[in-house]
């Protein structure tokens, strides 16, 4: 995401995603610099799993990430706020009904 004005040869920036244990999603852990993808994974192993934080690593070059525009958040996210019927708590059931 940064444009290095000083040095074109700066190692690119990578975003690191770590699966903390089997069955869970990969979660964004942070970023780091590496010359290539292989090195990015190894650097991530050394930087972000020193305390047994992970069992699997994803890396993606930061410049490859496309993000939504915060300026559009109202139109993107607020329309969901009045759809309360999407949530189970919207529905009243008699207490006798179990396992639903």
């Amino acid at each position: 995401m940064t444009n290095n004005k000083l040095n074109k040869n700066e190692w690119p920036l990578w975003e690191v995603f770590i699966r903390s244990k089997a069955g869970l999603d990969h979660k964004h852990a942070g970023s780091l610099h590496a010359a290539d993808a292989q090195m990015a994974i190894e650097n991530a192993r050394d930087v972000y799993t020193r305390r047994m934080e992970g069992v699997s690593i994803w890396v993606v070059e930061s410049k490859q990430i496309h993000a939504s525009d915060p300026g559009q958040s109202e139109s993107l996210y607020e329309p969901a706020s009045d759809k309360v019927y999407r949530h189970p708590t919207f529905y009243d059931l008699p207490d006798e009904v179990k396992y639903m």
Partner: protein
Amino acid sequence: MILEYILQLADDALIMGHRLSEWTGHGPILEQDIAITNTALDHLGRARSLYQYAAEIFNALPADKKTEVFNSVAINTTVQTGKAIDEDDLAFLRDVRDYRNMLLVEQPNNDWAYTIARSFYFDAFCYYYFGFLCQSSDATIAAIATKSLKETTYHLRWSSEWVIRLGDGTEESHKRMQHAINELWMYTGEMFVASSADSAIAQAGICPLPETVAAQWKNKVADILQEATLTLPTGTWMQQGGKTGVHSEHMGYLLAEMQFMQRTYPGMEW
């Protein structure tokens, strides 16, 4: 002889870890500073496990045998007090002649290429050798080797990749890498020369002779160097002596630095 043998392995790990740890805070980039420190910690951890085992064996020796094992005054003085020795006594109270690590691991860091070449030669050896050690008839050695093999597998990958990167990188890095590979070559032969401890251990069926892995080692080195567009050195003259305590001059300085606290303030807990 098993004591001497374990000390050989332990000293290799400690001295290698010591050299790598000299990079901490001074690496070429933050990410690699962290990576090399991880490796240093692995070596240090391995050294500790082995020293603890060595101390256990030493402490079980009959009293009259204990003073015959080492030449160093400092450790013998401790032994004479009748106190059991521990990992720190073995690391900090033995002088150069009692250290049994191979010459390769005590060679200075010089630059990143030297450091990588030294690691690469050593990691490739450990990788194949620990493969055998995992099956040792000595359960403690087998257990330590099993843990070490996992670490070493990663170390070898790391150092191999750097050999390739530097060999097949820029003109300057190629030159530096080839130079380091050449300069350290003469220290590689010692890995496969059996010391009397190695021979005794092999005879007892505890571990095979180090020469068992020589061919695999050479193939691996040749493969990686080829990928790195580097030339396999052809020199046949090999230095040796570390395993019998005849070290290079670097060793004295290394120990002077490493042992200074224990020597200046003897017998204290830290």
